[in-house]
């Protein structure tokens, strides 16, 4: 197990290095040259040249890359051009906000997804099952930004129960902070829940048909105990994998949902940096998000290996 983890960690390191080269190479060819962004649209060539000189933009690619990459190793992600502040703290703030949203959504998706899946499986092909199926189908079929807007119309504009967007000020108290999370979390949960609930349903149906569950039922165990204590733990294995895949969707969804709700997280920071051609900010944000994604995938794989000893050794290519 430990050697598997070490191998995976090593693979992630290699991946991140390759990625950082890729990110740097791609963003370096950005047409809106950094010096022009700093000096403004009407800068004279002299000014641009001077800035390029100062920032070392004329150095060979590998020199520039090394300057950037060696900085990352000591926690320095460069200096944002547009904000005129170091990138690392900007990302740290945004990351905290995004993490709150991600954790809340992930918890909701897991709890409600599994619950809906189990209910649908137990009431297979009954109206409840069909209602759940339609509900979740709607969730995956419509982009998160559309549901976000619908929720804003209903709950913020029409009913006035919740704020339309932004993040709660920490000084305003926990309730205000949480109220800003409700609509974005609901949007993300709704768009992601289908994967989890569908898979839980189908694997639960399969488990409920299995011999040992029939035996337990024949022994006269109450249906509740049977479902929750006996069938569910075994049916959850595929769900864990799909939850891992959902982490990727979650990150993608967060970018969009943050844009809809003007929520000051990593996604909004990234879109902002792309709109303003703020190279160091783009590079830093994408790298950090990609790194988080890698480690989230590793965690998911390890959880899966933990619950399913059959694959614990051997499969290095994950």
């Amino acid at each position, binding site marked *: 197990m430990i050697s598997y983890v070490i191998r995976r960690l090593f*693979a992630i390191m290699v991946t991140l290095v390759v990625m950082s080269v890729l990110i740097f190479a791609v963003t370096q060819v950005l*047409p809106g040259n950094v010096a022009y962004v700093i000096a403004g649209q009407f800068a004279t060539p002299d000014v641009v040249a001077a800035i390029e000189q100062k920032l070392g933009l004329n150095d060979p690619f590998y020199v520039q890359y090394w300057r950037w990459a060696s900085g990352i190793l000591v926690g320095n992600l460069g200096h944002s051009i547009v904000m005129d502040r170091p990138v690392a703290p900007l990302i740290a703030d945004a990351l905290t906000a995004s993490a709150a949203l991600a954790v809340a959504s992930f918890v909701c998706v897991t709890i409600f997804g599994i619950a809906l899946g189990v209910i649908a499986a137990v009431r297979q092909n009954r109206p409840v099952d069909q209602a759940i199926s339609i509900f979740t189908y709607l969730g995956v*079929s419509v982009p998160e930004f559309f549901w976000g807007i619908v929720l804003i119309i209903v709950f913020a504009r029409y009913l006035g129960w919740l704020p339309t967007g932004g993040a709660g000020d920490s000084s305003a108290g926990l309730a205000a902070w949480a109220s800003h999370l409700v609509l974005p979390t609901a949007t993300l949960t709704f768009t992601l829940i289908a994967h989890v609930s569908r898979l839980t349903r189908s694997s639960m149906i399969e488990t409920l048909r299995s011999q040992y569950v029939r035996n337990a039922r024949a022994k006269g165990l109450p249906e509740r105990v049977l479902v929750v204590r006996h069938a569910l733990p075994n049916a959850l294995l595929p769900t864990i994998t799909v939850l891992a895949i959902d982490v990727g969707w979650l990150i993608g969804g967060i*970018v969009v949902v943050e844009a809809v709700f003007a929520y000051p997280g990593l996604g909004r920071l*990234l879109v902002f940096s792309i709109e303003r051609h703020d190279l160091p900010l783009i590079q830093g944000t994408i790298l950090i998000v990609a790194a988080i994604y890698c480690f989230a995938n590793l965690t998911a794989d390890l959880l899966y290996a933990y619950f399913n000893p059959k694959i614990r050794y051997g499969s290095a290519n994950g």
Partner: protein
Amino acid sequence: MAEQTAIRAAKLPSRIPTKLWVGAAIVGALVILAAVAPVIAPYPYDGMSILVRLKPPSLVHWFGTDDYGRDVLSRTLYGAHLSLLMGFLATAISVATGVPLGLVAGYGRGRIDEWLMRAMDVLMSFPPIMLGLLVLAVTQPALWKTIIAVGIVYVPGVVRLTRSVTLNLVHEEFIQAAHARGERMSYILSAEILPNAWPPIMVEASLRVTFAILLGAALSFLGMGAQPPSSDWGLMIAEARPFIDRAPWIALAPGAAMCITVIGINLLGDGLREALDPRLQRSRAG
């Protein structure tokens, strides 16, 4: 050759699943609507009129008008054009790139396989939307660039699937026979393996189309895709946002259209899978 036919025959569906024909009907209707949009749309998609700004749905403007007085129905119809184009072209790009790579990796094995799969691992290490944003970050946004970006995002998935299908086929007797006959690799890949690898690839591709449409719409919504005055659904919803409490119909029409499109294509994909996957057929019968 006889073997090959036998394998294909075994995969033919016993009956056409309901999902398949409902999905096919929806998608077919959408394709027709998209194709004839310029003819049936009551107004041009970019025809502005200050006099009829933000008008609710009426007999003159069935779906109302937006803040420039443009007809929402016409824009939604034209948008079908763009969305389907986005979904199918991006998928075509990922299939056209991914299938050959997957065939070569699965058949060639060895070092080439190793390198290809590592490269795909790196691509897959980006969350899909990040990869799209990274590609679009470096140039001025335009619809065709979004299509290519979305296509690239889904290449690794197609490569992996094609590779695993190829790996399973390589040991089939008819491939061994072709090998023994001394056929060239290009012949074996294109004439022997590919025809048998198509069914799972087609199912995968059909489900990818909806991902592509949704991802493309999300990128357009973020301002990294189709540009104004284009009538892309994602862009329409983004533009409708400031007027959402006064004129919700501007966002609702493209949202509903997208919902129908995605459900239609999903049904088609699920139906295809049921029709082509014998294992699923058995479990349905039993």
